[in-house]
């Protein structure tokens, strides 16, 4: 192949070489001295997601993994500064769309904290129920991704088919399969009728039954166990040191769950267990989430029962604490031009993949946040994820990746 050079009088700016190169130039040379291979995994790779992993491999053993995230950075924090408070609700859901209720719940609770309003009982239960439905959906999604990373395509299709039910629930309740924007300051957008509650109950039974098949074909599969047992181990100490959160922290033996430690919504009125494992390897990180699906199903069942006993209506309050049957008509009048009192309002939420932090800084005059800080669980446990890869085999990269359920859009925000 002949190559022709075109004489263009413009030279590429120096930043292209200095900024856009994923690794410093000396890394490649240094690795050659150490008998290493530098592999660029991603962002266009079947097992990388929307990020680049720069892997230094010695033989078949990983020496170091350098993450290169930011390919799906959308600037949620900056965008939020230019929008009204309620316009930010759809925005903060975007990082993790399958986990929409949990994502918006943290933000909305920060607003409610600033306004100092108490949400009606019914709305609390509806929020809790849908947050758990989203948790089930997200855990199923991650289980599917983990399966296909290990090459198990049936384990990929079945959880995704089951996840369809959680989308259906969200659609019947809120009107949207994902990105529901259902949680609003003061309550929820609309009420859940009895037929939908029956459907949710049936769907939970179906998911519980079908996850037994999934357990047979994937979770107890000898090949799965061989691939994930004692792989990517994070000890209790390391997990705390590297700031791992959520199910992955609990898999290392730390019993920390925001839902139990600082209960919000209806969590303190329901009975459920915090799932903890001791091994801290890929398999226990996966099993913790599998068991959390069962706990979430229990929580949803309790919420459905409580909601059936409650009188319908009264699902929101306005800024002055007046009960509303529906937000229709009044919502934009009360919340559209909302101005928060000056101050800093922080909430912690247990999203599906771990602790989710929202901080709203308000100057007291503007109807948009002065600053919105979002720290998503993916960003918290990225360091732990990279550390656990050291000493693994190259093929374990995907097993560990899947076991963390790492979701780059969420981490990049």
């Amino acid at each position, binding site marked *: *192949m002949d190559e022709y050079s075109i004489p263009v009088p413009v030279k590429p700016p120096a930043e292209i070489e200095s900024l856009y190169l994923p690794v410093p130039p000396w890394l490649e040379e240094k690795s050659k001295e150490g008998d290493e*291979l530098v*592999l*660029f995994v991603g962002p266009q*790779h*079947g*097992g990388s997601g929307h990020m680049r992993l720069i892997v230094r491999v010695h033989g*078949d053993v990983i020496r170091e993994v350098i993450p290169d995230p930011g390919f799906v950075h959308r600037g949620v924090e900056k965008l939020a500064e230019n929008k009204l408070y309620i316009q930010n609700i759809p925005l903060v859901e975007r990082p993790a769309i399958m986990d929409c209720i949990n994502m918006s719940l943290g933000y909305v609770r920060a607003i409610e904290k600033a306004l100092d309003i108490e949400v009606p009982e019914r709305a609390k239960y509806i929020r809790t129920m849908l947050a758990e439905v989203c948790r089930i959906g997200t855990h199923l999604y991650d289980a599917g991704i983990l*399966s*296909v*990373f*290990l*090459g*198990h*395509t*049936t*384990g*990929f*299709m*079945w959880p995704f*088919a089951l996840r369809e039910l959680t989308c259906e629930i969200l659609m019947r309740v809120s009107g949207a399969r994902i990105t529901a924007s259902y949680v609003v300051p003061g309550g929820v957008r609309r009420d859940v009728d009895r037929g939908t509650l029956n459907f949710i109950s049936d769907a939970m039974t179906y998911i519980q039954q079908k996850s037994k098949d999934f357990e047979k*074909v*994937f979770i107890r*599969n000898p*090949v*799965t166990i*061989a*691939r994930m047992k004692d792989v990517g181990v994070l000890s209790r100490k390391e997990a705390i040191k590297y700031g791992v959160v959520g199910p992955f922290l609990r898999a290392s033996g730390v019993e920390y769950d925001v839902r139990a430690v600082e209960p919000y919504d209806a969590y303190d009125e329901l009975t459920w267990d915090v799932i903890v494992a001791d091994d801290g390897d890929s398999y226990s990180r996966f099993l913790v989430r599998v068991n959390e699906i069962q706990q979430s199903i229990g929580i949803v069942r309790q919420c459905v029962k409580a909601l059936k006993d409650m009188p319908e209506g009264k699902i929101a309050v306005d800024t002055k604490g007046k009960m509303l049957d529906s937000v229709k008509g009044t919502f934009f009048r009360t919340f559209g031009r909302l101005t928060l009192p000056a101050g800093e309002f922080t909430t912690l939420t247990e999203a599906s993949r771990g602790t989710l932090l929202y901080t709203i800084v308000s100057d007291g005059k503007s109807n948009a946040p002065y600053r919105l800080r979002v720290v998503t669980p993916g960003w918290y446990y990225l360091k732990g994820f990279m550390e656990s890869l050291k000493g693994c*085999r*190259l*093929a*374990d*990269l*995907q097993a560990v990746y899947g076991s963390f359920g790492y979701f780059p859009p969420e981490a990049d925000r």
Partner: protein
Amino acid sequence: MLSYLLEMFRQNSVGIPLITRKVVLYHTANKIAYIPPLTSLFAKIPILNLIVALIFWKPFFAVLFAPGLVCILIAILFIIWFERKVTARVQWRYGPLEVSRNVGGIIQPMADGMRYFFQEVIVHREAHKPYFLQFPLITFLPVLLPILVIPAGTIYAINTPYSILVAIALISLIPMIIVAIGWASNSKYAYVGSLREAMMYFSYEIVLMIAAMSMVIIYGSANAIEIVKEQSTIPGILLNPFAALAFFVAIAMATSRFPFEIPEADQEVVFGPFIEYTGIIFGVVMTLAYEKLYLLCMLFSILFLGGWNGPFIPPLGDLSPALWLFLKTIGLMMIFVFFRTFYARYRLDQALKIGWSKLMALAMVALITGLGLGAVNVMGWL
């Protein structure tokens, strides 16, 4: 000269009564109308008769039709469709459907092949260009050469007492070419993939050979025709089930079926040695594993399942044993591709460990069984 050739071809031609007999269309009191047989259609035309005779010449027919190229093509097209369809059924999906809806999308692989034909073939700058383009075509050599010595009933090219040994030796050339492809691609992922292929080669090859040898010892011959004749009463899988199991697992390893789909793991090394190929060349290298699967399944059915033994179908003549062999081979291939639905893939070191510990122990048991049965001359008793 030509007449001598013609005579040589005709003396050793495939007899298929279905197309060499005259077919009576109708006959009334004084008229009989025939369809002239296909082979005698060109019998008097100078060059065409030679070509037709050549096509039906047994060695040529064996390599080109059954059990050779055409059978491989049919098997590959069917098995790729079957793999996608059965996986889809297990996974609550439809699978290939829209191309030829009435027959369940069975010509989908053909449509894919045509798509490959019209795609651009990209040769990247770093590739060793001549080798990069040559090796996919050279792969047909070790795929088609074993056909010369693997007979299908009376259709064979070379009748040799070493047929099984020669076939296995030629089949084990395929990994060499895959490693060479990885080298010619000159890419990091291709490098990792070729290394994986070479490692897998180490882990299964000896087991495969020992398993085949233990059967050869029992039958007292490495000639495939002799071996199948010996199995007319009792198939080899009952004589030495250990050898059958070891050979079976070794085939799964050799053809990178699940759970040993390690060199081409698309989530880890993105088709490994074949990562840089595009267009029709990718289509060619992708079928390589299936071609190898076809050959090894054929060997498995000859060694353990009684080869072409089966009820004789008179209209097919010489094709009847070839058909039985083909059906057994396809059945085995279907079992192998079905593993995709319920297995993940092992890691490279785990596969090596399995190959050198459990599988090797099994092969040793098979060899001892084979030696014992061979010593008491079990075939003579039967």
